[in-house]
């Protein structure tokens, strides 16, 4: 419980900063910080495999992808972004409020698992693997097919149809 109490304000602050910062690079870095702090939280509660994978996939993959997209695109107008802020805030809050309400209602009805209990032993990686590639195989396969389709789609988008293939190197 103590790691959650220490980490959750930090995660919340970093996430708010990621939404609030007008400069996209700052927002992206704060998003990376948020994801890294969530990974730290997983590590502190004994879910080491999930924590390390979260770090590798989100900080090493997703955050880098966002940052790279920022590098190769032109930055938008920051002043316009700030001017748009009240409208964005209203829109965002109207979306968040029902979700938050639903969550609070669900929590008030009782938690699905015993969050405060320290009885959960850390799950060995073998068990995680058995679960993933045993019971959850259809879901894993579906995700694999989806990601392959995404990859092929991205390659198609990236290709410039008007251009001839590159000449040989050398």
């Amino acid at each position, binding site marked *: 419980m103590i790691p959650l109490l220490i980490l959750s304000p930090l995660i919340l602050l970093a996430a708010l900063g990621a939404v609030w910062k007008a400069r996209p*690079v700052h927002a992206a*870095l704060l998003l*990376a910080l948020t994801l890294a702090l969530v990974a730290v939280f997983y590590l502190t509660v004994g879910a*080491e*495999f999930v924590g*390390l*994978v979260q*770090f*590798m996939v989100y*900080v*090493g*993959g997703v*955050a*880098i992808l966002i*940052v*790279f997209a920022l*590098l*190769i695109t032109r930055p938008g107008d920051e002043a316009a972004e700030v001017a748009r802020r009240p409208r964005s805030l209203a829109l965002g809050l109207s979306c968040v409020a029902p979700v938050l309400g639903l969550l609070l209602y669900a929590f008030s009805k009782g938690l699905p698992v015993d969050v405060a209990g320290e009885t959960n032993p850390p799950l*060995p*990686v073998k068990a995680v693997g058995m679960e993933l590639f045993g019971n959850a195989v259809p879901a894993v396969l579906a995700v694999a097919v989806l990601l392959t389709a995404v990859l092929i789609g991205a390659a198609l988008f990236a290709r410039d149809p008007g251009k001839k293939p*590159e000449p*040989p*190197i*050398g």
Partner: protein
Amino acid sequence: MRVPALIALVMAASASCGWAAEAPNRSLLAPEALPRLPQRLVELGLEALKAPDWLVAIGSFAAAAGTVVAVFLTAFALLSLIERKTLARIQNRIGPNRAGPFGLLQPVADGIKMLTKEDIVPTKSEWFLHLLAPVMIVIPSILALGVIPYGREWVPVDLPLGLLFFFAAGTMTELAVFIAGWASGSKFPMLGAMRAISQMVSYELPLIISATSVVMLSGTLSLSGIVEAQAGFHLGFIPAWYILTPWGFVAGVIFLIAGNAESNRCPFDLPEGESEIVAGHMTEYSGFKYALFFMGEYLGLFAISGLGITLFLGGWQPPLPGLGFVPSWIWFFGKLAAVIFFFLWVRGTFPRVRIDQLMRFAWLCLIPVSLLTLPVAAIWQYSGKGALGWLLCSAILLVPFIILTVRFNRRMATNNRRYTFAE
């Protein structure tokens, strides 16, 4: 003078009678446990002071971390000199020879120079991120060095998910390079960071995939478990290292190439190609921050070489039977020296590649071949690991390799160029 002589005598005596291998924990001064000496001393000291258990644990880890940092910072200083000397030898020069005998004090002189230089923060930079980047470069390398098993008795932090931790810590480097490039507020760092990130992302895939095949065969993510899986000898004298299997050889070579690219070394040193973009993401750094970048790079080189040794070269296992009396960490550091020397040799020999060649090599050659090692490792596992396995695995690996080489050779053919500048 007498105490070191006594220690040396005890070490020699214990090594010669194989006492160390049989009773590793009995003595503080057993050669096998020598790297753990600071850690053990701190533990014993704290226990003598009746410190609580958590304090002993923290002190013990701090001492282990201190040992790792001290060993590898010394090695970094030595390597910076050895690298310059080796490159000089390859290029028919003498190399540093002014500071101290054989230039031995050159690292000290470099350190003093770096520390006393003016620390420049460009006005267009963001000072906080500009400061954060060099720190973030060094941290993951030191974290990664902490999980490698250096000897039978010495794994600073023996994590059950060591391999995963190594790669997870390594991902922080990419973000740090981006921050360095962006926060400098100038064009060359930006271009360097773009090159560095695209290169790191591309070469991380073959690196991790080739490591995955080792995990498949050893059945564990713990690095000390992987080393133990490579114990023993085939036919009585061939070590059972993974590099000496068909899939392991291919995966090991891929790991070596990708590791070289991950640590941004020649021939993959485009991110800081001096003749092209000044110094890449480090252009706007000076003084100690620049030294931190350098340190991070070399510590990363140590870490990736150490991981390669652990995964493919048997870690601290001796290369021949009957050599078990030599402390295991000596084998590890001997292999580390050999691998690092190989990297220096490569740096002195190969020309820098172009960015399109770099990307093409990663995506069209390394990633397909490394993906191929996964099914081949499975075939090796279920075909008895004998002559049949050798035949099947080599055939499956060689055919695409030959096709790829022929294609690459044809595309890169350079019909007899004539160089006339030196005549």
